[in-house]
């Protein structure tokens, strides 16, 4: 399959995206710069988390602990700033902590061979427990609002959160698609045994993928604090699943290998969906329901389209080849 065909896979997402954009524009009330900014800022963490999930999912794993990490890091930043520690010190430290949690995840999954869903779910429980101890179950918020200026500032005319998102995206894409490490991540996801016999230390590769995911989660937590200035305990799993949905929508489903363009589309789609639901003025209580249905429909449309692609791609081969593919699909 070449790149063009992979891009073809995005067609359903793009179609839906344009429909939603159109709908959003048609029904939109007055969109002010401020509402857009707030909206973008609140969505950036989802994007960063989805990007961090990308290498893990290419390696055919999953990380459910990201939002817990983001929350913990957010709380730690707030606590740190409130105790007057310099921001320049806090941020590297929390990023390192994110990577460290990723390392633990990775070691448990790769070395101790615990299923990633179990591992990362347990990890998220542990992290939430730690957070509970730190915050005593209360909402924590910044004493001074200086840090919020970070979220409002711009770099080269682009809002800092968006810039962070873009840099993160570029960094992860570069790593996955252009470096030796990335090639090894893809290979490990494609066929772990073969990668092992090819001289790839697959345990290390898995661990690094989890570390990337952990650091991205930490960065997302930082951005979340910069946007809202507060962190609440008690976010549940469904939020983390949104990140998975973004990645899946982008064509990085658990079976196929990823496509960087897909990730962008998935992210935009998610964005617009959230946005338009608010625009339509749909009752908050129904939003979840609505979101779930729409996303399911998109995924189904995607799958149907992929199957169509597969069929059209099949070339008449030799009888034995035919035989094999048929055998395989049975």
């Amino acid at each position: 399959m070449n790149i063009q065909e992979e891009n073809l896979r995005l067609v359903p997402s793009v179609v839906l995206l344009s429909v939603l954009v159109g709908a959003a524009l048609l029904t939109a009330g007055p969109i002010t710069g401020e509402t857009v900014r707030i909206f973008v800022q609140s969505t950036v963490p989802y994007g960063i988390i989805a990007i961090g999930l990308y290498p893990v999912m290419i390696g055919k794993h999953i990380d459910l602990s990201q939002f817990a990490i983001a929350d913990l890091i957010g709380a730690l930043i707030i606590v740190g700033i409130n105790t007057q520690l310099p921001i320049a010190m806090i941020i590297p430290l929390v990023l390192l902590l994110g990577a460290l949690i990723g390392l633990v995840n990775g070691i448990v999954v790769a070395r101790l061979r615990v299923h990633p869903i179990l591992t990362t779910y347990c990890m998220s429980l542990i992290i939430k427990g730690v957070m509970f101890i730190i915050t005593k179950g209360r909402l924590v918020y910044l004493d001074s609002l200086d840090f919020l200026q970070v979220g409002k500032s711009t770099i080269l005319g682009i809002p800092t959160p968006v810039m962070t998102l873009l840099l993160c995206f570029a960094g992860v894409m570069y790593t996955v698609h252009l470096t030796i490490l990335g090639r090894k991540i893809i290979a490990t996801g494609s066929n772990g045994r073969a990668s092992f016999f090819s001289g790839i230390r697959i345990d290390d590769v898995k661990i690094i993928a989890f570390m990337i995911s952990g650091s991205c989660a930490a960065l997302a937590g930082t951005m979340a604090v910069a946007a809202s200035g507060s962190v609440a305990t008690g976010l549940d799993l469904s939020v983390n699943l949104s990140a998975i949905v973004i990645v899946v929508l982008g064509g990085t489903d658990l079976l196929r290998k990823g496509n960087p363009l897909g990730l962008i589309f998935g992210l935009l789609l998610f964005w617009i969906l959230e946005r338009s639901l608010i625009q339509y003025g749909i009752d908050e209580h129904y939003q979840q329901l609505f979101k779930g249905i729409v996303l399911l429909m998109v995924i189904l449309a995607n799958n149907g389209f992929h199957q169509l692609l597969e069929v059209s791609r099949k070339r008449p081969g030799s009888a034995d080849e035919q035989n094999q593919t048929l055998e395989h699909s049975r």
Partner: protein
Amino acid sequence: MIRLERIVKTFEHRLILDHIDLQLEKGKIHGIIGDNGAGKTVLVNILSGVYQPDQGTITIDGKPVRFSSPKDAIRAGIAAIHQETQIVGKLTVAENIIMGDRSGISRSTWFVSWKNMITESERILNQIHYPLDPHRLAETLNLGQQQILKVARAICSSPQVLIMDEPFTNLSEQEIKTFKEIITSMQSSGITIIYISHDTDDILRRCDTLTVLRDGQVIHSGPNSFLGSIPPIRELLPIQDAFKYPRVPTRPGRKILEITNLKTGRGVHDASLFLRKGEILGITGTLGSGKTGIIKALLGLERILQGTILLDGEPFTPKDPHHAFSHRIGYLPEDIRKDWLHEDMPFSHNLTMSNLHELHGRMALHPELEAEAARRYITSLKIKVSRLDEHISQLSGGNKQKVAIAKLLFTDSRILILDEPTKYLDSSTRIDVYNLMSKCAGEGMAIIFISTDERELKGMCDRILVMKKGTCHNFFHRKETGRSFPLDLYTAPGEEPMGQSLNSPTRGSTPQRMESE
């Protein structure tokens, strides 16, 4: 008596079987031969209910039948052993045997009697004289044992007709012998056997009737005695197999690898061998003889309990395949689809996988370097790919093996360990692989060639090591000229592995290289 009349099968408008007529008499062995893509496998799949013919009829004893699934065929008494493995790894041997046919072991439709299942599977295994523990998980069996398991499963339904599609692919010589005895005993009990194999010689030797397929048509069908006239040059000569292997003689160089009194956790009790530059060392033995155990130890997959490995005179304790690769020991696994290739990745990415550092520029992987390497191997090994980013799953078996070997060569290893590199290949690719091995040895690489095919070992190797019960049983040296290996490696007396020849190499110490300026 089974009769196939005017069978037509197309896949996506491509005619695979073109009005096939076939008669199969009871209690005979029927051989089917033909090139890859001639339609052999599709034909037997129609007979065993995997596919349904577009046109034509199948009659059994004069009654027309129609199979809509393999289950129907089994009910009608036709069982098949296919090329593709259908063993369920997570189930036990007994479960795998009884799978699909519970009639003999349970009164209820829904529940299975475990005790009956065990006794029944033991009975079947005894019937084919191959003891396997019924409680063992199937995934712990090696490929050869899994093949036997497939036979046991096929026999379980007491079939009238048994179809065997390339049944010997994974078996050692010893097992093939047992297997052939099973065939003979089954035939004498009145079972009709349909036998497909690329081993034309064996079909000629064994089958009562023979069908030759070409491009989906029957070009010959009848008693075996007519057969001599089918391939025009075959009738002219008795095949002298041992002489057909294209090994260019090399002068072995200095010792590069030396294993002394190796004992590992599993399989190997006491093994010693050495390997010199420019030579091909064959290692053979039946399943469980420890021939792969030595290799596993070399790759760091088995713990070494005793003994030493010297690499270039330096002690070497392998940790994992990565460690072995970094010491330029390259290993090509037997099952390349499972253990070596990434089927859903492009050809070029597969090729370079074990030596990515070769492609690394200052900042990133260099796609041009990768494409250049890919093109180099396409021209030199004549790998048939339509694009550099073509996925491996799209390639034919022979081409996959070529990619697999190219990937190994790209690692620039000086010791190549080839585990059954020719097993699944047709003759035209095999001859390519043999020539490639000879070329590599000529360039000074040291090759360990693991195989159960005695002929290819005798034809290609300088020395052959026969393993038995975890120890080096016999060691054979090729003499200065000619082929002096004994006729039967397994029974002939051989030289001791670490005898005189080790201390006093009889030949010059510089390897003879093939000039390629």
